């Protein structure tokens, strides 16, 4: 029982990481239909930002706190640049964005290799986040994972508030639900797209900061997460935050419980089969926008 609980907590923290990554994807994939493979490299950018900041700010705690907004801005700026240079030319061919952004991601990985070297680097976690909390009965929670969980939930909350309460959020939701109608209603969809891309990519940067707490930083660190994060969006349903939240945690827990009862590799296969089976039941994902359109 203790093992199962510990394993579930590990799963929840895996889910939190997936969620942080998938939040940005829900926006960009949901609003624009863009499959941005370079999202993984925005994670990497966030992680390296933390690394660089820690070199100049010696305090691990301060640098981590500074890194959160800075990584958001760095990754967000990269996202805007990508949107402006390439993606806006490809809105009529959403599937092709996958290959184009994959090319971008290859180049960004190489860029990271050229700047920081091919071997992985490491940051120091602040002392506060290195310990464990023991709940008794053999159940322990790692502080760093609790922090990531908190960060993910905070991001969900912030994003929900932005989408629900601000004029920008209303515009974003309008564009997600009916792009053409939004356009003729006087919404500058291009600007909304760019802002959405900024926020979505920025969240990847935040995810990168979080990942420095639980693993090494390397040029290909994003690739390891990107497909899983896309699966979260696929299962959760496009453009739906609550779908992503539920799915991220469900997949995280499923994966880590299965890993415990079988092996990592078998767990992956079972999760994939489960996803394909799930799509038989709900081909559009957990939550969908109901529309009458053919597409």
């Amino acid at each position, binding site marked *: 029982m203790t093992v199962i609980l510990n394993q579930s907590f590990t799963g929840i923290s895996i889910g939190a990481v997936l969620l942080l990554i998938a939040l940005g994807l829900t926006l960009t*994939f949901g609003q624009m*239909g863009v*499959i941005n493979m370079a999202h993984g490299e925005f994670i990497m950018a966030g992680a390296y930002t933390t690394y660089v900041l820690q070199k100049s700010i010696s305090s691990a705690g301060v640098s981590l706190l500074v890194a959160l907004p800075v990584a958001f801005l760095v990754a967000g700026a990269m996202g805007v640049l990508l949107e402006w240079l*390439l993606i806006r*030319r*490809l809105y*009529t*061919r*959403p*599937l*092709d964005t*996958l*290959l*184009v952004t*994959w*090319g*971008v*991601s*290859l*180049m960004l*990985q*190489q860029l990271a*290799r*050229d700047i920081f070297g091919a071997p992985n680097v490491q940051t120091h976690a602040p002392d506060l986040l290195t310990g464990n909390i023991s709940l008794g009965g053999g159940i322990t929670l790692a502080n760093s994972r609790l922090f990531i969980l908190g960060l993910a939930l905070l991001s969900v909350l912030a994003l929900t508030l932005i989408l629900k309460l601000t004029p920008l959020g209303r515009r974003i939701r309008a564009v997600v639900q009916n792009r053409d109608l939004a356009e003729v209603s006087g919404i500058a969809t291009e600007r909304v797209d760019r802002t959405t891309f900024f926020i979505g990519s920025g969240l990847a940067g935040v995810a990168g900061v979080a990942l420095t707490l639980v693993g090494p930083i390397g040029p290909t660190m994003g*690739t390891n997460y990107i*497909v*899983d994060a*896309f*699966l979260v969006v*696929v299962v959760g349903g496009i453009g739906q935050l609550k779908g992503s939240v539920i799915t991220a945690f469900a997949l995280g827990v499923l994966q880590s419980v299965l890993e415990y009862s079988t*092996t*990592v*590799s*078998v767990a*992956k*296969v079972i999760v*994939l089969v489960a*996803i*394909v*089976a799930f*799509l*038989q039941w709900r*081909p*559009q994902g957990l939550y969908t926008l109901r529309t009458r359109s*053919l*597409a």
Partner: protein
Amino acid sequence: MTTTTTTSPAPPVALLERFRVPAGFALGAVLLLGVAPLALSDFRLSLLAKYLCYAIVAVGVSLAWGRGGLMVLGQGVFFGLGGYAMAMHLKLADAAATGQTLPDFMQLYGTGDTLPWWWEPFANPAFALAMTVLLPMAVAALLGFFVFQRRVKGAYFAILSQALAAALAIWLVGQQATTGGTNGLTDIQGFFGYSLDDPVNQRMVYFIIAAVLLLLMAAARQLFVSRYGELLIAVRDSEERVRFLGYNPANVKLVAYVIAAGMAGLAGALFVPAVGIISPALIGIVPSIGFVIGAAVGGRASLVGAVLGAIAVAWAQSTLSDAFPAAWTYLQGLLFVVAVGFLPGGLASLGIVLRKRRAGTGTGTRTTGETA
């Protein structure tokens, strides 16, 4: 069926049209089966054999992606299944030739001294050969059936294909005792009784690969011009419309996907004697996307374009990646961006694009992606 006079085009054009394709095919055959073996050293010819394996995958990619609009990003899975099926048989044959019951890596990492049950049938060459094609086709049929039947979106299909590639690669790595793990199946000595160390036999392998490529290109060409080929384009352009015509688009897509998988499997099987190895590194997400880039550069919807593109990219990769690894990665990334982003018809469409531009009508390349 009655023929009316309205279709008969002007005779000279018809003659040209009629002989263009067979002439091109004959030229390709002469180059691959005549000129290349004479002009190239053993080493270069074996490299070409490897590139041709990628070209065989590209034939299927051109059918499924170029014509059918299916973003097949998991071809590494089928390539790998074909490759492992072949390699398992060759490893068993190698072991049997030296009087062993187990392949060498199993003696090193294995837990017992008995062959896993699922290895046993691969000792039979006919079974193993059939599996190189049937196994990938079966997996594709299974995934394709569930995905296409429920009208899962094109983007979802692309992501699921990638996830499948990742899962298979991870699974292979995890089963070191029975699959060789990260190393894969290596050090293959013989090919159905012929030693692969002998350059003459290596040349034989090359000829087999070249012949298979030519045959598959001819078969794919027949599919392209058949009614099925027209229907496939129709499904790509407007799936819903095809459904209202009384077809089930899921089946149309499934056929293209399964054929492409079979071709990738065959390519993987031929890759093993040509290169002497099959490993998870050839299967995961990265190589799977790599299988598409050649077709994208050459022209996804053009059979010859896709094949030449695949050969060219493979050549560039093995020529540049050792000497200038960083430069190659940048170039590869740039290829994706430029070919897919700005020249969706690939190099095969360059002539048309330039002509249009000169005529002042803009680029006007039609989109070939499925908008699902």
